């Protein structure tokens, strides 16, 4: 009897344990099911951000284009929103001028740095110089703006006496300095991934290092190099603080780099700092300009992605 009871008691214990374990398991299972859902929600935030950007730019731009015609906006050559003239060409021209100057500075210097680091420098030198060069990319743009206004412009004025305090030249130049590490780093990565067997083949035929660089390494790494340049250009187009501080606030359709200009980004800052009332045409013009800027950079980024995907050399 006793034994029976005891064993019955034990059986109950075991049953309880099984029940308890079952409950535990179902709690655990529930977590296992909830977690991926929660993680998916978080992943959706980045998608929502994109949707939000498109939605904002489109909706407010449509508000703008109900006041100003699309044709006037894109074909007009005078930008002075405070007197009702909304021809965006001077802002686009200013952005392109800055981008052109920056590219002329950054592409030769960045590419030559990349060749030096990848092909000529030994490991020790590369390990020191590459991170130091990348510090240039980490400096806040407001600091660059300060540097452009208080140092680069006075320096240039020593050579070009007519240079105004605000001018496209020093703004574009400093933007170029800022994007050097982008060109240099990404191009160097592309050159590094060219297999050594290709170089050695050329050396075996008696080529000098320079000939190997120009006839083997550069052609083999071309897609990566071009992608790096396009990305750097996209960065220059979207750059805001340097040009706001150093290049001026004069919408000016000119290709004279010594003049003061205004970029799309600088106008957005100017209009946002001024007392722009919510719902006014100037308020909406922020978004129409922002939309144009967004399309410019998006196209550049897509081109860069297309190049590095389509023309990637697999070794």
């Amino acid at each position, binding site marked *: 009897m006793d034994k029976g009871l005891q064993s019955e008691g034990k059986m109950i214990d075991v049953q309880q344990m099984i029940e308890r374990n079952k409950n535990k398991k179902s709690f*655990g299972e529930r*977590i296992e099911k909830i977690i991926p859902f*929660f*993680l*998916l929600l*978080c*992943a959706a*935030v*980045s*998608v929502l*951000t*994109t949707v*939000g*950007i498109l939605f*904002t*730019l489109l*909706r*407010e731009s449509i508000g703008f284009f109900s006041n100003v015609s699309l044709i006037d906006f894109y074909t007009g050559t005078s930008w002075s929103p405070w007197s009702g003239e909304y021809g965006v060409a001077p802002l686009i021209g200013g952005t392109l001028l800055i981008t052109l100057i920056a590219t002329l500075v950054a592409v030769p210097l960045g590419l*030559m*740095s990349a*060749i*030096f*680091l990848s092909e*000529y420098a030994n490991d020790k030198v590369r390990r020191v*110089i590459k991170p*130091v*060069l990348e510090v*240039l990319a980490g*400096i*806040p*743009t*407001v*600091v660059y703006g*300060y*540097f452009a206004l*208080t140092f680069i412009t006075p320096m240039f004025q020593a050579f070009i006496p007519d240079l105004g305090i605000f001018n496209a030249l020093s703004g574009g130049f400093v933007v170029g300095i800022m994007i*050097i*590490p982008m060109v*240099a780093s990404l191009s160097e990565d592309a050159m590094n991934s060219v297999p050594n067997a290709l170089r050695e083949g050329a050396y075996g035929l008696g080529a*000098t290092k*320079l*000939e190997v660089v120009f006839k083997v390494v550069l052609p083999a790494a071309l897609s990566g190099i071009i992608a790096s340049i396009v990305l750097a250009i996209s960065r220059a*187009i*979207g750059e*805001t*603080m340097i040009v706001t501080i150093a290049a001026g606030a004069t919408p000016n359709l000119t290709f004279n780099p010594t003049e003061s200009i205004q970029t799309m*980004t600088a106008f*957005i*800052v100017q209009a946002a700092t001024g007392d722009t009332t*919510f719902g006014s045409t100037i308020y909406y013009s*922020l*978004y129409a300009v*922002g939309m144009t*800027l*967004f399309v410019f*950079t*998006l196209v*550049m*980024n*897509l081109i860069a992605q297309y190049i590095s995907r389509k023309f990637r050399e697999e070794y």
Partner: protein
Amino acid sequence: MLGQNEQNIKKRMEGRVAFNKILMVLFGMATAVGLVFLVLLFYRVLTQGIGYLSLDYIMNFPAPYPEKAGIYAGLIGSVFLMIIVAIFSVIIGVATAIYLEEYAAKNKFTDFIRVNIQNLAGVPSIVFGLLGLTFFVYMFNFGYTLIAGGLTMALLILPVIVVAAQEAVRSVPAEIKEASYGMGASKWQTIARVILPAAIPGILTGAIIALSRAIGETAPLIIVGAATAIYTLPDSLLAKYTVMPIQIYNWTGRPQEEWQYVAGAGIIVLLAVLLLMNSIAVLIRNKYQRRL
């Protein structure tokens, strides 16, 4: 005849070798240009700003006179803003990375999220400012407040954190995951107790580097209305605020020369904070690099 030919070849060879040498020097000089500008920039900022840098400068609010102006409101504002940015961007970023690396099926939707994150990283920061202005300032009606600025910046650095966290999660060796599964752990148990602890140094390093980008950002905060003259510290999420880069921008724009020195001193403080953050990131990376 043969001697003539040999001489020609020798000449040509010498020319090629010399050309190689010349261009090597040119490439080296081009590399030096970037470094020289870095040195010039630091030198310029230090010499301009050091005279105005003092404990008073760090502890003072902005003032109408250069000698009395200080960066206290900006410094504390930046710290508060970074706390908000860190909370939102790290939680959402790490969760996104875990989803993409551990849960996401290999399908079009996952590819879409990946491409989307890549493209977000290329959107100019000022466009994020416009996003924040529409949604956080007006639609959610936060106004020009700390929380509106913080959320805008969190979205801005989210792609950077996702990519860094993805790399950290991916670099956890498959063996220790399999060991965890082999002992009967479930997927989430493996993630929470094995993968995340192993990935934390990488995640932290990436997060600090992303935050150091956010702390120097100016443009989006101008758009979402960070103030320039603030005489109290923000006491709630819905308080007005300013940050260091905004103060520096404001001082740089003033015509009197003294304000440039005030701005220079502000830049020294900003760069010091950046240096501190990056050193911490490097320390974490070096300390934990060899553990796995």
